[in-house]
């Protein structure tokens, strides 16, 4: 539960005043995300990993790839699961214990963006149909908090998947066994990019920082794929959007997303 204190109210006044002049607290344009720094292979023991800074929000994502049993109705598809967790060292307000609704939503929205874009071609991750498949697990941990974890976690997971190498398995006496020397990249069909926008008053801002985050009336996270299609969306917060605003946010997410996609591609290329 975040309660809005006196300080937040004062900050909100200042943020609103600046927005009326078309400015933001940190000097960015309204549709300008913060600087994105991507470092891949930060955790060599993982099959793929990335350490991402979006402004002062910092997330580490590690990808583990291992054989698993398929879901009962999905015997011809591999498994993809993406999680997100706020570590207690990321912010004084974070407590240990089971995740609250905010963190559950965060993890589910990040997972949905990557899943619905069909980024990973799961049909290629089958060891033997209905018996054994390959599972790709992308776990995000937030180590420093400065707002907009939706995008920070999504970029970390995407970069980590792009940098991943998967072993090859085959069944020997029903046990998945690694075939040596057959490592390959994870089969990727598209690069999803999520763009989170906040609504403060009548203004729409891209990539809200922590101060803007507490002042937002509502927010919207839109994920687009490499073809410029929209593949996942989540509205949040205690206010609504007009039809025009929703359409405009869709356009912003395609435009801003394409620049970030180039950055994520570079991270992969620089890694090889």
């Amino acid at each position, binding site marked *: *539960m975040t*309660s809005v204190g006196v300080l937040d109210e004062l900050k909100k006044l200042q943020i609103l005043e600046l927005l009326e002049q078309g400015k933001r607290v940190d000097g960015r344009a309204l549709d300008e995300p913060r600087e994105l720094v991507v470092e891949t292979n930060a955790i060599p023991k993982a099959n793929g990993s990335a350490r991402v800074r979006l402004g002062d929000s910092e997330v580490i994502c590690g990808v583990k790839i291992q054989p698993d049993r398929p879901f009962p*109705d*999905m015997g*011809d*598809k591999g498994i993809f699961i993406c999680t997100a967790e706020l570590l207690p060292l990321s912010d004084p307000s974070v407590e240990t214990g089971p995740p609250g*609704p*905010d963190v*559950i*939503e965060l*993890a*589910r929205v990040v997972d*949905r963006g990557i*899943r*619905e*874009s*069909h980024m990973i071609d*799961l049909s290629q991750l089958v060891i033997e149909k209905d018996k054994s498949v390959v599972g790709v697990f992308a776990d995000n941990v937030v180590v420093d908090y400065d707002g907009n974890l939706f995008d920070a976690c999504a970029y970390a997971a995407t970069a980590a998947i792009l940098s991943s190498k998967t072993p090859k398995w085959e069944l020997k006496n029903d046990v998945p066994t690694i075939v040596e020397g057959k490592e390959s990249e994870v089969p990727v069909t598209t690069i999803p990019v999520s763009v989170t926008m906040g609504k403060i008053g009548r203004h729409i801002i891209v990539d809200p920082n922590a101060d803007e985050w507490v002042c937002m009336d*509502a927010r*919207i996270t839109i994920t687009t*794929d490499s073809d*410029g*299609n*929209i*593949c*996942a*969306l*989540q*509205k*949040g*917060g*205690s*206010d*609504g*959007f*007009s*039809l025009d605003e*929703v*359409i405009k946010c*869709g*356009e912003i997410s*395609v435009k801003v997303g394409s620049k970030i996609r180039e950055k994520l591609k570079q991270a992969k290329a620089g890694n090889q």
Partner: protein
Amino acid sequence: MGGRESELVLLDENGIRCDGRKVDEPRRIMIKAGGLKNADGSAYIEFGDNKILVGVFGPRDVHPKHMSNTDTGILRVRYHMEPFSVTERKNPAPSRREIEISKVIKEALEPAVMLDKFPRTAVDVFIEVLQADGGTRCAALSAASVALADAGIPMRDLVAACAAGKVADTVILDVNNEEDQAGQADMPIGYMPNLEKITLLQLDGVLTPEEYKKCVETGINGCKIVYDLQKKALHDKYFGNGGD
């Protein structure tokens, strides 16, 4: 999404869907205001094969006390599915999916309810899904609005909800369970028709920018159909159902 290929024909050559509907036709919807004796407000909705019961309590004292806010009342929403509501028995403990849906429904209702008139209190909305068949969050949100109005909570507008989606490369209204599993996109929308404000919006599935726009517009049209039925339900309870 990602379901298995099957012989199910989602859209035939005459533009008729797997359950016999046209592309812009919602399922059968029945909303009833009231019904529960102890709740301060309640509503029951049947939306296709979905059957959902909603009870509202409050404004009332907040427990635990630290959750209370001296500036405004708070809204709490619990969306819960009965173990017998789906094909395979569902574990009765709240799942991560239910926690997320509770949150998005809460945030969809908040713009509508005027809780600043009731500081230090809570309004609790309990949503029980008795039978589920795709689109429960929309049906639940529509019923919850009616239950809040039935409880006499001051509101700016009712929130009406309906999903739009894409099957066989065609934008459709009100996605059912089969269409959700085998279709290409599902976009639940919550909308306040008088204020022209979208308060719930989610999407999974791939849409081009043009389809995205059409989907939102189609969903809003569905919300307007639901809105009329919500008003009728309240009218029937409070002004008798003599005239149509």
